[in-house]
């Protein structure tokens, strides 16, 4: 995992208020886990060959796992999206709150948008408005950090980070070119 995780000392990663404990399992892989507010231990075991398992600890015996579910790459993405997508914008806004003058907004690619069916690079968004396209949401599925060759479609929601003026210009560009 990379991205908005912040590495802190002692094999721990902090995501907002969740303290993720990272444990090396010699010869097996790496375990990342945290304890929920409800007192349940939830985690992911990444084996050395890259395959992953979802771990869920029991309530009676918090040391033991009651479920160990092997997940394929696609299944990991699906599960992550199911859990994470609705929160993405809120999280981004949360993170940018500390930075003065920068905010996050999402704009639709409408049917009439000149960029429907064209790649992200064509918008020249960064050059023209100094804003960044950080994600695109299509059918409730998030594509984080879309590459310049990402092709927009009508109905996409574009998540953009920038200053107030920049965001206004960006909205204008996406709507009218």
């Amino acid at each position: 995992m990379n991205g908005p995780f912040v590495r802190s000392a002692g094999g721990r990663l902090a995501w907002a208020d969740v303290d993720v404990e990272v444990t090396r399992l010699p010869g097996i892989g790496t375990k990342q886990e945290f304890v929920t507010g409800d007192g349940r231990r939830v985690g992911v075991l990444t084996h050395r060959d890259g395959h992953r398992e979802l771990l869920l600890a029991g309530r009676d015996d918090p040391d033991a796992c009651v479920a160990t579910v092997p997940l394929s790459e696609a299944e990991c993405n699906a599960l992550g999206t199911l859990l994470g997508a609705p929160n993405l914008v809120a999280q981004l806004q949360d993170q940018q709150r500390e930075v003065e003058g920068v905010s996050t907004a999402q704009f639709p690619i409408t049917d009439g948008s000149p960029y429907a069916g064209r790649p992200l690079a064509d918008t020249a968004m960064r050059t023209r408005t100094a804003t960044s396209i950080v994600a695109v949401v299509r059918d409730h599925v998030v594509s984080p950090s879309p590459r310049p060759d990402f092709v927009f479609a009508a109905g996409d929601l574009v998540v953009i980070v920038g200053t107030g003026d920049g965001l206004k210009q960006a909205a204008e560009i996406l709507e009218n070119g």
Partner: protein
Amino acid sequence: MDTALALEELGALFFGLGVLGRLAGRIGISPIPLYLLGGLAFGQGGLLPLEGIEGFTELASEVGVVLLLLLLGLEYSASDLVGGLKRSWLAGIVDMVLNATPGALAAPILGWGPVGALAMAGVTWVSSSGIIAKVLADLGRLGNRETPAVLSVLVMEDLAMALYLPITTAVLAGLSFLSGARTVAIALVLLVVVLVVALRFGGAVSAVVDSPTSEVFLLRVIGVALLVAGVASQLQVSAGVGAFLLGIAISEDTAENATRVLSPLRDLFAAVFFVVFGLNTDPAQIPAVIPVALVLAVVTTATKIGAGWFAARQSGVGSLGRWRAGAALVARGEFSIVIAGLALSSAAIDPEFAPLATTYVLLMAVLGPVLARVVVPVHAAVSTRLRAA
């Protein structure tokens, strides 16, 4: 040598091992005890004495030891070992004291000398990381909180082997104290150098063996492993330790590829190693050592559970988790046979040694996984009864 006959014998041997391996999978145990039984059946005084392929099987079993230890080394990164050493040295020492002592004490009772005591101490000390990793995965316990403690005990044992094997090799060879001390010093320096090199210049060792073609890569890894093992053997450090240290020094990405290409070869040659050990054991001597083996099994089951219990308590695991950790560690296997195999070549070893080691490992390799399974229901039943009383 009659090539046709040799090929037929080898074919029958491997096919027979395949059948045994399948049987082991069916009944859910490690194939190691069945390979040993296979060796007993084929060997001297056994059902089907094999003749004419000893030259091949002897060398193949040496290669088997090298590959077993090379792949063990490949599983660990240097930072795993250093981290394990920092966190779990106390658990490692408790484990060694509790589990090497019964083996060492058995020797004078049986009338063996100090050499036999040293070898038997190793046989009862070291758990089987192969069997245990498989059992933990099968029982869905890899994510449990006691599992890091179990694994760190295994790491400590494997690391200790890098010193124990050279010491034992030197003692078995009857070296003088001075040359023995030199051997141990070489092993110690090698271990430190390998850890430092792997931590600082991990890519350097990998660059020697790395290649984009898997064929070239396989040949290079095997070549370097056998060269290192041979040189280590000449320095009396023992071939296996050389291979183990090489495995540690190879950095992570390369190690994963190496594990992938070498695993089938390891399975093949290690099977030959277990069979050859069985071949060299006279089955007629086994009934006489069964009582001793049973006592050792009971005692070292208890001491191993104690060691695992202590390690898990150290990492703040609850009562049931401590028992799970203890029971998981009970299985002995490949390492005990590697140590016993070293001892076989020495004249200072009592002829009862091989049958006792074989019987002991047969018991523990089967008992360990069973205990790991039943510890949870047994713990539940006992604590219910205690609460009722």
